[in-house]
């Protein structure tokens, strides 16, 4: 019986599932967490290149999502609402740890901090040194990941909210407390930076096909 219900909820439309959750349905809550835990973890993983306390923030985000689901009046705005929880938690944590938000100018050279400041995880993967068994797509993924990590904070946030979470410009502007024009400009510049890093690998991949 329980398994059947689980299967039904698995295929259920998100809006319907949210309504079930708002009626204190335990299985619906389980399904909602199951559907969103990975994307929450992945969003936080990319928002914070240092990957500190991701698990704690992710758990807190999941907890707040489940606890406050009843307060969500329009289930269609769930994605925006969830990202509000994630970004608020993330930036609160950043502020709490008195980490200074990066405000690097676009004119600043790419590896501005020099070799000493760049942690080993921020090094760009070298194609020549990659293990032979690694596939090209894995290599490309690694390059994309490193390039996203190296983006200035504000650019990284808009790229994550757009490409990973699929939010609209208006929603991103509201979350980042900016205007649509700023979001548009940040996204364009972030994409230009990513393109700069990824282009050689993309060409390599396309050449190899």
């Amino acid at each position, binding site marked *: 019986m329980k398994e059947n219900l689980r299967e039904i909820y698995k295929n259920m439309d998100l809006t319907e599932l949210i309504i079930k959750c708002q009626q*204190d349905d335990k299985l619906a*809550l389980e399904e909602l967490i199951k559907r969103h835990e990975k994307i929450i973890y992945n969003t936080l993983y990319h928002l914070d290149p240092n990957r500190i306390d991701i698990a704690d923030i992710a758990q807190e985000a999941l907890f707040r999502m489940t606890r406050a689901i009843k307060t969500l009046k329009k289930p269609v705005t769930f994605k925006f609402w969830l990202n509000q929880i994630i970004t608020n938690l993330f930036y609160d944590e950043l502020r709490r740890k008195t980490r200074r938000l990066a405000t690097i100018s676009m004119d600043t050279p790419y590896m501005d901090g020099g070799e000493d400041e760049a942690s080993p995880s921020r090094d760009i993967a070298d194609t020549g040194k990659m293990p032979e068994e690694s596939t090209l797509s894995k290599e490309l993924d690694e390059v*994309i990941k490193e390039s996203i990590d190296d983006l200035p904070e504000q650019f990284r946030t808009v790229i994550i909210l757009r490409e990973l979470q699929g939010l609209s*410009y208006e929603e991103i502007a509201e979350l980042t407390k900016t205007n649509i024009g700023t979001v548009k400009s940040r*996204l364009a510049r972030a*994409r230009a930076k*990513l393109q700069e890093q990824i282009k050689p690998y993309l060409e390599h991949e396309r050449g190899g096909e």
Partner: protein
Amino acid sequence: MTENFSKLDDCSEISEDLSAFIDGELAKEQLSKIYEHLLECRCCRQTYEEMKITQEAVKNYFKRSTEEFEIPEKSLKTKDNIISKIIFIQKEKRIIYSAVALSFLAIISYFSISLINFNSPEKEVLHKVKFTKEKPVLTPLPQASKDFTKELKDKIIKKKTFSKPAL
């Protein structure tokens, strides 16, 4: 020459809009302007193609990384923990709400009972009885009644003597 300059201006203006064009986040007028420019300008068309490929690659990367994301071992029980925590909070809330409702009900019933008692005529009688008990009103008996009590006393004495014959 002037044409070339205007072309360059157009291209630099458009580079920012190209990203929004890919996302479908442009207004109708801007959309047609970019579309027309792309038809004319080979260079921007190439930039657009490259940007689109990059965007797709990034999007695919995010999709793959989410699917393959390995949740840390210590967080694996998150789901159960959260649900039990939520259920506990809901139970706690229910208990608090019921306690508040019960106390509210008790207060209301206390006040309504007091109000009913205060207004009821029986209460008034009780009050009077109580009052007269505590402070008896001593009214002088009329003369006739005095004789009557004397007679009554005599009768009682007689009765007593009757009922208790000397052994």
